[in-house]
């Protein structure tokens, strides 16, 4: 469905010092430097996959996404989406894709969402009956049917985003490009949108590419992740695998009947937290079962939890460029 080969984007940026002297110097001798937003990124995405792009701010995720959708011309490399060259933005290509950006909207502000939907239906050449069917179906999936006749400016951020999704998916695109779609939304709205995207992907087999800061988005939706750091692709594979590779351990949280000294707890694993009768131990994955049995046997805890480490913590060093280490 999607192929990127040695994809790269370089910007030439003018370097200017501040102040009057700097401005004058700049007029006479321009100093520029090249910013490599994306360097040699290669990957393939099959139809129906749900792929997540992770990376720090400015890492190049959005630039990559925009090259895939045809907005930005690549400086070098090849990209093909649904057998089209995206940058040519041919009509047949544009009918098959959609771009959704968090905090940026295409809905007309002063009018109800239904008016934007009518325009989109006309732009994508949908028959009126067909358009109405799709609106009804998507509105039901998103639970926004009663909101469509309210002026968009009167909707809450979450409601607006859901209507944005409706407007963007009316033409049933085969490829969805989502750039931080849940940015700024409250937990309920985020979960609702995640649920919807999952349902959409399953029901229509659409290929979805998602960038997000919220790991919850990625873990809930993406089986496969691409980690981008300073324009380069660091990792391309399953999320669980990278988590395992980077932190092959689990956290065991204990609530004890009476305080136990640190040295005693240390026998069962690395003590990461100890406060009164609560403790947390870090144990290697393969040792979890044995440790749990031993703890129950010897310490008789009131409560015991085995937790996966927070993914943010796992990925964070990677995002800072500390590399993958050896598997």
């Amino acid at each position: 469905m999607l192929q990127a080969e040695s994809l790269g984007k370089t910007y030439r940026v003018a370097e200017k010092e501040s102040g009057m002297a700097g401005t004058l110097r700049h007029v006479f001798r321009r100093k520029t430097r090249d910013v490599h937003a994306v360097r040699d990124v290669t990957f393939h995405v099959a139809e129906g996959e749900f792929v997540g792009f992770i990376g720090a701010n400015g890492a190049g995720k959005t630039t990559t996404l925009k090259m895939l959708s045809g907005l930005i011309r690549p400086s070098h490399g090849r990209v093909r989406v649904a057998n089209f060259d995206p940058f040519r933005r041919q009509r047949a290509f544009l009918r098959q894709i959609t771009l959704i950006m968090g905090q940026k909207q295409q809905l007309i502000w002063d009018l109800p969402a239904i008016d934007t939907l009518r325009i989109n239906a006309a732009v994508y050449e949908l028959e009126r009956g067909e358009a109405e069917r799709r609106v009804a179906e998507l509105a039901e999936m998103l639970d926004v049917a009663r909101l469509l006749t309210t002026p968009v400016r009167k909707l809450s951020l979450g409601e607006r985003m859901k209507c944005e999704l409706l407007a963007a998916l009316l033409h049933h695109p085969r490829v969805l490009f989502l750039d931080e779609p849940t940015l700024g939304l409250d937990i309920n709205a985020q979960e609702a949108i995640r649920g919807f995207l999952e349902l959409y992907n399953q029901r229509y087999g659409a290929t979805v590419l998602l960038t997000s800061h919220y790991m919850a988005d990625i873990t809930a939706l993406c089986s496969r992740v691409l980690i981008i750091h300073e324009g380069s692709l660091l990792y391309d594979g399953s999320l669980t695998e990278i988590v395992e590779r980077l932190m092959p351990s689990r956290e065991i949280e204990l609530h004890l009947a009476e305080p136990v000294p640190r040295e005693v707890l240390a026998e069962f694993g690395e003590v990461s937290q100890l406060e009164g009768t609560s403790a947390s131990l870090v144990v290697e994955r393969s040792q979890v079962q044995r440790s749990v049995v031993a703890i129950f046997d010897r310490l008789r805890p009131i409560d015991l939890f085995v937790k996966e480490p927070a993914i943010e913590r796992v990925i964070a060093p990677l995002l800072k460029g500390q590399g993958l280490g050896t598997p």
Partner: protein
Amino acid sequence: MKALARTIWLFWTTSLLAELEYRTNFAFSLLTSALNLVASLFTLSLFFRYDAELGGWSWGEAVMVLGTFTILQGFSATLLQPNLNRIVEHVRQGTLDFVLLKPIDTQLWLSLRRVSPWGLPDVLLGVGIVVYGAALGDVTWRGAIMGLGCLACSLVILYALWFMMAATTVWFVQIYNVTELLRALLDAGRFPIDAFPRGAYRFVFTFVVPVAFMTTVPVRALLGDASGPGLLAAFGLAATLAWAARALLHYALRDYTSASS
């Protein structure tokens, strides 16, 4: 084609609906247009009050030039300002991305997406004034058709110039008001080109900002005074500028960097 017509119909109806949320304005814009026109006619009359020659143009003829200018002004307020002056907003807010990814010609979307009824009084009043001036002279049917043809060229020329200036904001967001400069220079179109001194003035307003082609030439054609080469120049200019506008947009989008998230 039919789908396109349906789309533009929806563009304009939604645009009007959104504008009419601010209800006070139509009567008001009619008032301002009328007052503006009265002031302009009054100023023009001052020239004739003192027996100035105004380049050999009579009152009726000069009034037609003013009327043509008013039509162009109304056209710019109805279609050009609401659409083209918004290009810079699209670039600033990143919503140009949405426009680029719609399966509709980008230039068409950027140029026809909106319509503002507030410019219509100027168009109507301008037409009225031209008719008044025509009635004072003698205008043949042939002249009327030639004049209309030239007016169409004027509209295309104005559109193309305005579009090109607005499109530069894809590169330089800071010069978003460059279209204001164009609007200011267009004021020269209130007067027939012959009213200006020979030399720099006539050169600039014919070849640099072709105001002469926008207001003087259509009226000359209307009066049956247009020469063959003159008409050809008008059509040629319109066609060339229209092509240049499209080429410029294409070139600007090649290097489009898009706002980061």
